[in-house]
């Protein structure tokens, strides 16, 4: 117990010192910028990001290998841009707050929740959706395995689940069960197909 409380104290102290330090840094930054603004010529001022909105703004993306341009409000999420503007409805919006991973797409080859990513933040990025996973008529091994193992029931979580599993195999060609669980830990399936997702993903890894 004693150990624990002294640890707690240390943690608390260090957190306080961190905050203190951070406060100082922030304050000095403010002072510095104020100084810059008052004494230096305007052309050398740090460049501010452009102000977007409230109207539509152009976002350019490479989606499934195609160059796309969409005009969206700055608040538009990547999921909305994909579904409502590019009509790629394979990506599903389920919780709209990053709790279920049904909207998983790859952003520059990494799985992300597209409901938690603003379209404007994806500007210039490479986006892969479930529609772009197959190579023409040749399905991705994870897609093949999901069919083979009947790993989809109602199918609504499936696109996100497939993108998470295929994303895992992209970074780890030889995963074990724990890796599969970790990769899909955020993907919720209400039909409870989890056991078949395990089987399918491990089988797909063997085929790759």
């Amino acid at each position, binding site marked *: 117990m004693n150990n624990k409380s002294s640890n707690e104290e240390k943690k608390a102290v260090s957190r306080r010192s961190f905050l203190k330090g951070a406060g100082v840094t922030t304050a000095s930054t403010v002072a510095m910028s104020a100084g810059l603004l008052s004494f230096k010529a305007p052309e050398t001022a740090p460049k501010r990001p452009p102000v977007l909105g409230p109207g539509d703004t152009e976002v350019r993306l490479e989606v499934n290998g195609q160059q796309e341009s969409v005009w969206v409000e700055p608040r538009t999420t990547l999921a909305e841009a994909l579904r409502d503007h590019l009509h790629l409805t394979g990506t599903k919006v389920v919780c709209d707050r990053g709790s279920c991973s049904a909207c998983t797409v790859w952003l520059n080859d990494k799985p992300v929740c597209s409901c938690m990513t603003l379209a404007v933040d994806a500007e210039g990025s490479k986006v892969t959706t479930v*529609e772009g996973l197959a190579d023409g008529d040749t399905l991705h091994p994870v897609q093949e395995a999901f069919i083979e193992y009947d790993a989809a029931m109602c199918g609504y979580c499936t696109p996100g689940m497939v993108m998470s599993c295929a994303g895992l195999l992209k970074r780890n060609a030889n995963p074990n069960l724990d890796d599969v669980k970790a990769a899909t830990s955020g993907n919720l399936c209400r039909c409870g197909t989890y056991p078949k997702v395990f089987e399918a993903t491990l089988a797909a890894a063997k085929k790759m």
Partner: protein
Amino acid sequence: MKNIDSKGHVTGKSIYLDDIPTIQGTLYGVVFGSPVAHGHIDAVDYSKALAMPGVIRIITHKDIPGENQIGGIIPDEPLFATNEVHFQGQPIALIIAESDHLASEARKCIELKISEKEIIVDPRVAQQKGELIQPPRTFALGDTEKAWAKCVHVFQGKADTNGQEHLYIETQGAYAVPMENGNIRISSSTQGPTAVQRTTAWVLGVGMHKIEVDVVRLGGGFGGKEDQATPWAVMAALGAQLLNKPIKVVLNRMDDMRMTGKRHPYSSDYKIGLSEDLKIIAYEATFFQNAGAAADLSPAVMERTLFHATNAYFVPNVQVTAYSCKTNLPPNTAFRGFGGPQGMFVIESALAHAAHELNVPTYVLQKKNLLKNGDEFPYGQIAADVGLQHIWSDMESKFDIQAVEKRIRAFNANHSDQKKGFSLMPVTFGISFTKTPMNQARALVHIYSDGSVGVSTGAVEMGQGVNTKMLQIAAQMFSLDPERVKLESTNTTRVANTSPSAASATSDLNGKALQKACNALLERLKQSAADHFGVSPGDIELKNEQVYSQGKATSMSWNQLVDMAFLQRICLTENGHYATPIINFDKTKEKGHPFAYHVHGLALTEVSIDCIRGVYEFDAVKIVHDFGKTMNPSVDIGQIEGGLVQGIGWMTMEELNYDNQGRLRSNSLSAYKIPDIYSVPKEVLIEALETDGNDMAILKSKAVGEPPLMYGIGAYFAIENAIRAFNPSFISTFDAPFTHEKVLLALYNHYGILENSKTGIRSSLSGNADVRIAQ
């Protein structure tokens, strides 16, 4: 046969409601719901909302040309509130705008004045105040009053189960498109297309023939879209009628969770009496069902609680009474198991209570009292086709219950901070709609002149694989390559007057109707071939798209036979109708033969608890299940695994949280936890009981949708068992779900910190934490 929809699912090409390409000019509806749970609406001011850009119209009860009524069993629920509101989120108006963002913004500007009234959230309080949806019902067998005297041991107590959010991954929604002559075509994410059609017709003041409802598939239903998909479709259709524009209404997740009903929470009292040799002599229970603010399907759910009150046991003297209590929560509704699980939890609690007091393992009591063929259920049906003894001996031979018990005891003796526990959970579940008239279905089959086949039934595909099973039946019966058969969407113009896809009976009812249609077509085709070859129809067979006569292949293919029949002007379309035989139920006597058959099974659940933190994980669930003769093992095993996980969720982590103002606190996926990939038991083993199957089931393959959910009840009692290994003085509370927090408190309640969870006194251990006690 693999699920026929899988390829669409894994490539993102399957079309769900919100994926349907919208027609130009489509407008979007967002529902304005009541912010208070009970009150009188004094005034509503829509002017600011209407002045917002992009807002087209706000529709209220005043705009309804027909009846402002959506109640299915009892007409007690308006589409839009008029003067009174009875639950938080009760729809008051539909805001129609050019986008759902704009409609949502406008919603914030509506000004509402409500005089609040007394709010009831506890079913027992509602019952005391006489707030009931319908009069109580009682099922009885023998005479419990006299039987108590014969009992050597009598135990009584209270057992509660909380509700459960459906959390279908696809939220509720509908898209209504005005057609010519005042007709409306609705695409709906519903389990009950006819319910949507009928209710829309009432509200719009038109005939059902004016309303077409089409369902491609659902992203999950679980009962939540049996009745409660209807209001949103009706609202969309009303908007389409009033504005002559396509209207889409899709609920966002928080609206969906706030506005729709759940699995019914129950609070129940039990009394059980046993003989010297531990046979159950008498059982009484009183169920207080939290129905919410309107009837919805509550009377039927309550009825099934009574049907399954004695689960898989024979009890000679039974008296069970149920009250459907009216509270100020959203009307609760169907959810996989439909009241059965709530009834079963109570008798399992009673047995666990008795076993603990008598110091015998619960499974000894369970095994001693299993139902046998010839036993009478409290509702008068005589048990037949019961394999429970076989199931139990299968379990013993395959998984050795005693060895599991010994292993767990040894583990517990050697571990102080970790304990294991186990339980057995037998299940007996009746198959059929308990309302006899609903046990009918139709299927429409077209053989096109090129030999390909189109099949329409009343079944809605929601992930349970019913379309795969239907296609399998048609392809098998015609001996065709499955690629040549297409399952059409479920549409009220092709198959009318459908029962909802519910009660686990969808494959049986629609499959049998489909068989009838296929048989009639085969008969006509065989007659045509027989005439051609100069033999009798009995000599003709169709195999692998070839015509066989007297056992020998002919030169005639399926395609040629179809073509010939068409040229002979033989009808290549058939409508099959099926109504389940035998079943009946007399509500005045509460006796009859309501079920076509029963499904039985047994689950052995093993759990490990971390006694420092109260967290637990399931090591294994081993199941012996009565599939009959499964027609699609892959689909059926998926249903068992999925049902089990959902049942475990209900019993463990899913904590529906309404405050005393009737406000849903667990109103999003970040506040309501459903089983994730780590919640699945580490080992799930499913063994099929060897049986001949049942002719009342499609291809002798028994219904499989709901029964496995109740295996999850075993999770609760396995946790109890493990807690007792750590804290022998633990007093059962029988109040599900057994969350990690509750487990932690139970592990340490011998410190007297947790006084008595039954009294509703909050634990002092919890500090500021809100320890919820089930109402």
